[in-house]
């Protein structure tokens, strides 16, 4: 796992082409490496957009209107979960609690959590991500 994290931190994903060398380094079969990478939601096998936007779908955020936020983001970006906007700026992902439930609804843009996110705030976040 530390190796997979290092690869994803570096490249943004764990390309399938890297499985044989990972397998060799860890003395595993390619199938085992594939099994581990695909088991965990955190690891992705395809290159993401320049930014990753995660929306919390868990209960506390639902209680504070995350469903409406989710619908707004999907419409604004024109993508569903696990998809990337046409301009390659943003990959949208779902997440199940960010530990920021005291400030629901929460989202995470790359490694930054944002709390009490309303449509105004999310539009700013999206605009900033698209511009950078």
């Amino acid at each position, binding site marked *: 796992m530390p190796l997979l994290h290092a690869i994803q931190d570096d490249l943004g994903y764990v390309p399938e082409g890297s499985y044989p060398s990972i397998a060799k380094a860890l003395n595993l079969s390619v199938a085992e490496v594939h099994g581990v990478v695909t088991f965990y939601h955190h690891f992705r096998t395809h290159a993401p957009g320049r930014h990753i936007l995660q929306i919390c779908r868990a209960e506390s955020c639902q209680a504070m209107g995350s469903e409406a936020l989710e619908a707004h983001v999907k419409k604004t970006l024109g993508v569903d979960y696990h998809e990337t906007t046409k301009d390659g700026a943003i990959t949208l992902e779902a997440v199940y609690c960010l530990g920021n439930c005291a400030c*629901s609804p929460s989202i995470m843009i790359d490694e930054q*959590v944002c709390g009490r996110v309303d449509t105004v705030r999310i539009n700013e976040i999206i605009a900033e991500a698209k511009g950078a």
Partner: protein
Amino acid sequence: MTTIVYVPRDSSALSLGAHQVAKNVQAEAAKRGLDVKVVRNGSRGMFWLETMVEVVTPKGRVAYGPVMPKDVSSLFDADFINAGAHPLNLGLTDEIEWLKKQERLTFARVGITDPVSVEDYLAHDGYQGLKNALKLSAADIVKEVTDSGLRGRGGAAFPTGIKWNTVLNAPADQKYIVCNADEGDSGTYSDRMIMEGDPLVLVEGMTIAGLAVGANQGYIYLRSEYPDALVTLNEAIANAYKAGYLGANICGSGKQFDLEVRRAAGAYVCGEETSLLESLEGKRGIVRFKPPLPAIEGLFGKPTVVNNVISLATVPIVLDKGGKYYQDFGMGRSRGTLPIQLAGNVKQCGLVEKAFGVTLRELLYDFGGGSASGKPIRAVQVGGPLGSYLPESQFDTPLDYEKFTEIWAVLGHGGIVAFDESVDMAKMARYAFEFCAIESCGKCTPCRIGSTRGVEVMDKIIEGKDHAKNMELVRDLSDTMLNGSLCALGGMTPYPVLSAINHFPEDFGLKKGQVA
């Protein structure tokens, strides 16, 4: 004279702009030629007041909040570094009623100290527990923890001392201490607050656990959703090594304890202890059959203590003040305090550490101030995504493991999520199945298939198709999952589902009071 200003580095505070507040404080102070030192502390846990900035004055710490980055210059205009009047002035932090009403034992230092500073930790009674532990035999340390009545705070509420005793008595050349910092339950954040606000108390607790059972290696399995906690933990661990509190010769005792953080990868089921161990070993997080217990055959087949962050972070105060002191708090067989996390539709969300026995109503209204929306609170889910939904008629239940069992509910990790009257409980039941389907490790059929079927059946119920038949089907599915699942993910998904149906039948197309 240097004025000290505290600005939290807790990630919830950061989620509201605390980094920018800290930067602005520094910039304004420089601009005005004032001698100000900014210290990044943890959060006091009053999140409706974050970013809460504190200034050290001769009378004590004075709080201001919620401070937005744009408010900083007006704070300086109001001479806040000398406790000047300002609409955001909250008075002396220690006098804030919300904090005064709590019994902060595990959270004694959170929000007060610089989380990564060993000196600050020592100046606030840190490492007193370890100092005592180093004078005791392993069996006596375990006895102190057993006497405290501490039960695991990760959810299962198993007595910590008994678990440790099993590991102590398991003969082996190598043993491990594993801290479960996967904190996957929605509505919970107390582990995160400890790791970001007082990580050294966790380091100390794990070190004591190592001495108690004869383990010289510890791992913290940290969820990948907590990048800020990772930074704080690693800084704190590095500082503990430098100061001689970790490593080959702890405090010159000749005893060894090494500690490392391992990042998880976003699988809820890896919070289950055997799945966690598989994951630490670099495998897919498939749940293991028990027995053998991890205490006998855990990580790499060696005897292993697996404990939640809060359980381990509570050990130092037990060893510092004695098992009896801790045991004196609480009610029934629920001893000590529980760090409760208020979440969801609550006006004043935050961390309330109280002795067991406090009621939901006190927490929701006296601490929480009611709902954030101003509408009545209709339902609360206690204990994460596998916890039951409770209606208003059960709000007087005291927080106590056994009292909750009596009403077919759980305390879990102490998270309370409130919903106002706009909630549709049928949707929440559907979500419970959906979550289980997404996170199932796939080992047992009732969990893997049952949860997916549950989503389909709930969809039909919501549409009103074959209503009676589908309601029966949901109950059957729930029964199968309750009885045929290896771990609590499949085995407890029926808790939120059935409690929603039983307490809120009107949301499932039934008459109030009607039982399907």
